[in-house]
């Protein structure tokens, strides 16, 4: 090896890279440090000692909607408010994700319908709902449509045991009457499911050996419904339904979705479904026509072509952006502040912050919750993409 001439430091890219990075780290670090320091000083000047001591103080306000938490005014603490907020965020997110997925897939599929009217109709739906601010939609449904037009509890719109009125949406809730019976029923159901899984395996083996196909989905569905019901009766009907009953001012009992939750859920569903529909359309269209033609040319039926060739390929394109939409929906649920649904941002970054002035801790915790959700989403996405790449090789 020849001996290398020494390089002047300023021309050595390694030295330069280290210098640049150290400088960047120092600038950013110092920036954060001084921001933090000024903030703490400012808070002290306002008589607020930054810290987490306020967690254990009793929260001086009521939260109307706490379905999973026994929240009591005068007893529950600030930290309980935080958890109630998270629970309510998750509740509306889950409800919204389910509905938006169903509606979005439906709209996306009919967007490609050969029927001109139907596909135009889907297009109009998509273009209207994704091009108007979500906040406007939430307020529109809540303040302009539902609040003024929905009837008072007395004249609720009844749909079976479900009631809709200006206070919200009321549903029956299953209540476990007898725990042992219920356990028996669940055990029986488990056996049924295990049996069906074994049946599906057998059917697959049969198909691979002889080529004979059994209508497994139909048989399973029928067995689940009929068998489930028979087992339910056999185990002594362990559930009863707590139905909402009209009281003096509103319905009592059952599950209650207050109107803000209902409006928020409704608007989130419409808005997000428009985006999901676009993903679905793009995904289906991304499967090249050649794929379909090749499958048809091999003699597969239309149905098999769709099930075996189009859908598996389309789903790979559809699923990643749809997962991102789920995250968006969850983040968007924070617009609940506008209608007064009590999720994380409203009760924690809103009310609690106003009451305690603990800006640093409260905003930090709120942001942390969302950052965790978004990290979780990227993990899921990465995992999914890796898996797809593996199977594509």
């Amino acid at each position, binding site marked *: 090896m020849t001996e290398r001439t020494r390089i002047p430091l300023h021309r050595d890219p390694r030295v330069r*890279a280290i210098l*640049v*990075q*150290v400088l*960047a*780290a120092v600038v*950013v670090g110092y920036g954060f440090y001084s*921001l933090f320091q*000024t*903030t703490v*000083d*400012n*808070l002290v*000047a306002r008589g607020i000692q930054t810290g987490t001591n306020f967690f254990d103080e009793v929260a001086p306000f009521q939260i109307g909607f706490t379905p999973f938490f026994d929240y009591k005014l005068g007893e529950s603490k600030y930290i309980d408010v935080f958890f109630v907020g998270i629970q309510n965020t998750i509740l509306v997110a889950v409800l919204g994700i389910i509905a938006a997925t169903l509606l979005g897939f439906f709209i996306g599929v009919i967007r490609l*319908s*050969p*029927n*001109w*009217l*139907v596909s135009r*109709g889907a297009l109009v739906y998509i*273009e*209207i709902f*994704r*091009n*108007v*601010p*979500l*906040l*406007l*939609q939430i*307020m*529109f449904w809540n*303040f*302009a*449509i539902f609040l*003024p037009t929905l009837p008072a509890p007395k004249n609720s719109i009844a749909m079976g045991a479900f009631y809709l009125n200006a206070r919200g949406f009321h549903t029956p809730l299953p209540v476990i009457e007898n725990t042992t019976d219920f356990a028996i029923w669940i055990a029986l159901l488990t056996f049924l499911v295990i049996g069906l899984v074994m049946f599906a395996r057998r059917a697959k083996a049969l198909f691979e050996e002889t080529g004979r196909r059994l209508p497994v989905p139909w048989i399973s569905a029928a067995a689940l419904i009929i068998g489930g019901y028979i087992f339910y009766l056999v185990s002594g009907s362990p559930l009863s339904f707590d139905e909402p009953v009209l009281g003096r001012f509103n319905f009592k009992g059952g599950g209650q979705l207050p109107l803000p939750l209902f409006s928020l859920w409704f608007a989130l569903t419409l808005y997000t479904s428009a985006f999901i529909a676009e993903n679905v359309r793009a995904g289906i269209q991304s499967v090249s026509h050649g794929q379909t033609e090749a499958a048809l040319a091999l003699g597969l039926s239309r149905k098999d072509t769709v099930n075996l060739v189009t859908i598996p390929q389309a789903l790979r394109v559809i699923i990643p952006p749809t997962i991102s939409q789920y995250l968006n929906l969850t*983040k*968007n649920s*924070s*617009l609940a*502040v*506008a209608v007064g649904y009590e999720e994380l*941002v409203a009760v924690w*970054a*809103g009310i609690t*912050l106003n009451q305690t002035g603990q*800006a*640093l801790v409260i*905003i930090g915790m*709120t*942001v942390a919750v*969302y*950052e965790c*959700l*978004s*990290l979780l989403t*990227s993990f899921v996405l990465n995992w999914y993409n890796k898996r797809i790449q593996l199977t594509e090789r």
Partner: protein
Amino acid sequence: MSEVKIFVPAPDRSPPSNTLGPVAWLRENLFGSISSSIATLLFFYLCFSYLPPFVDWAFIKANWTGTDRSVCEANAAGACWTFINVRLEQILFGLYFASKPEELWRPTLIFVLFFALLLPLLFERTPGKKWLSIALLGVFPVVFYFVVYGGSFGIPQSNTTQWGGFLLTFALAFVGILLALPIGILLALGRRSEMPVIRSICVIYIEFWRGTPLITILFMASVMLPLFFPAGVEFDKVVRAMIGITMFQSAYTAEAVRGGLAAIPKGQAEAAMALGLGYWRRTVLITLPQALKISIPSIVNTFIALFKDTSLVSIIGLLDLLNMAQTAARSVEWKGYDIEGYLFAGFIYWAFCYGMSRYSQNLEHKLDTNRRN
């Protein structure tokens, strides 16, 4: 004796009549199968039961003229566009300009100028696009400042807190887009840097802002921003919102630009390197121009998202288009006409977002076909 055969092309015949014309079109597109026919009928049924009443309410029976609610109350079966008509200046330009008719030329001039600069840019064949873009991104904001903000050249000053309506929405979106672009480009370059510290800083910045809902960021901007600065340094509410929006938007812009950068083949940078161009020249002359061109559709999509998201400032109490329309509809004079207010504001948002999304779809389509050639 063999004669030379002469090729005579057979005359074209028209296709069977049952494959042409409106009837065939109907049969194919509306009644192609039983389910399709059912869908068509259902569609017509739904349209006929909902559309006519709506058209009736919104247009035929609607109230357009007049100056107060008595007109609308007299004809309650129609929409009350009178309300929008009376409050139009407020909804478009905010309380300050609406209360000073002699100052209305200022926002009007700004919007006329904006569209005069923007519209020619949307067409492919416009000459001098470069200069128009520079005027729009460089000169226009300055004109905006002097005309709308005022305070010099004998134009009275209007504080940002007095801006409202569509003018405020526009100002927030425009500032966000304008400032986020350079920051976003730098972040995108940083995220692709080979220096781990720089890369991590950019990744954390981008993912942090992308992971947080904008409303939390606006709360942060309105509650925490004053705490971040030593006592005495103060921003008004609008400027605080602008800062929050810029931070947020730059992260999304960065991701859009990064997508473009990733699409540029490595050979481009290598060829530039082989010619002796250094990092910055290589980036500015070779990679960035190509990357930006590819990422225009995604950048426009982030514009659309931001334009809609500016409505969130109404939650922190700014009187933007949405909040102005809502406030007007809750005023004593016009109480109860929320639907009209929301529909009008919604229509403005929709027109802009739909326009932008069509534009970005066209561009995307063009880029796609160019690439295939």
